[in-house]
């Protein structure tokens, strides 16, 4: 417990700085779990709000980044058990079918189709591999940074990344998926 918590304004500044620095990482790990961008954003925001509540309660969190990542992971796991997931309205792939009235250019259609195939392949991969792929390609992190965030060594990150890429390339080739322009 922190007997003398910082003033609210200062705390708010710290909070926003933390959000700016780590919210994308929190989002990325939540996204890697469910492959759902909106849900990942909900989880990231909720994790930060819980951090704020902890501060208000006077808790001294030594490593807010690790705390946030742990809370986000727990929230993502809880979501698996939640009633919404079991009895939800529509799975994301059905919602993808909602189209605009505007005609979609052929290029966009091809891209959407490729992305849908890629998403399906990514969903079949182990979540730990998706963690690495998301940090690498969504946040453009290098091996060292990914290793630091996930708490594993750089060699393991490199191996898993190479293996995941090789598996994806094989599947994409087998399905004849071309890289969109």
């Amino acid at each position: 417990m922190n007997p003398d918590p910082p003033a609210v304004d200062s705390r708010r500044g710290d909070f926003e700085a933390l959000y700016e620095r780590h919210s994308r990482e929190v989002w990325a790990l939540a996204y890697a779990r469910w492959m759902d961008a909106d849900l990942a954003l909900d989880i990231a925001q909720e994790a930060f709000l819980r951090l704020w509540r902890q501060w208000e309660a006077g808790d001294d969190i030594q490593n807010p980044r690790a705390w946030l990542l742990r809370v986000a992971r727990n929230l993502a796991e809880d979501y698996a058990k939640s009633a919404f997931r079991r009895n939800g309205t529509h799975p994301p792939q059905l919602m993808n079918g909602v189209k605009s009235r505007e005609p979609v250019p052929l290029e966009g259609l091809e891209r959407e189709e490729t992305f849908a195939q890629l998403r399906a392949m990514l969903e079949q991969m182990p979540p730990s591999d998706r963690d690495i792929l998301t940090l690498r390609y969504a946040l453009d992190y290098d091996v060292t940074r990914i290793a630091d965030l996930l708490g594993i060594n750089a060699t393991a990150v490199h191996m898993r990344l190479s293996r995941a890429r090789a598996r994806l390339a094989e599947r994409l080739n087998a399905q004849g998926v071309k890289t969109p322009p």
Partner: protein
Amino acid sequence: MNRNLPLTELPSQGDDLDRLLSRFYQSEMPGPWPPAPHPDAAARPMPASRLSGYERPRQLVTGPRAALAASVALLLGSCWFLSNQTGDVPAPPHSGVTATDGKATKKFPHEIGKAPKDGESRRAIP
């Protein structure tokens, strides 16, 4: 093995895949990135979102359980009340049966073995 090889030196046949993955993940990233949630929101109940389920399970579990317990208690109470009531209820009038001894005291004309009165005919049984 490509141990400790920087990502930029991964085999070139992966360039297309790299590009595809980068585009895919970039398209998934929310843009523009939303601002930090306002801490005041922490004091309010969460908005209706898919995460609402995290806060509600306890409510969802205890609500129906309490209602079920109340229903069962009401049912048992009603049964007990009604069973106590039936012991004191007098028999309906003209039934010929008293609630105390359960014996019939009134005799009816159609009782077996009694001859029919005048004007009544008994059908012959073949």
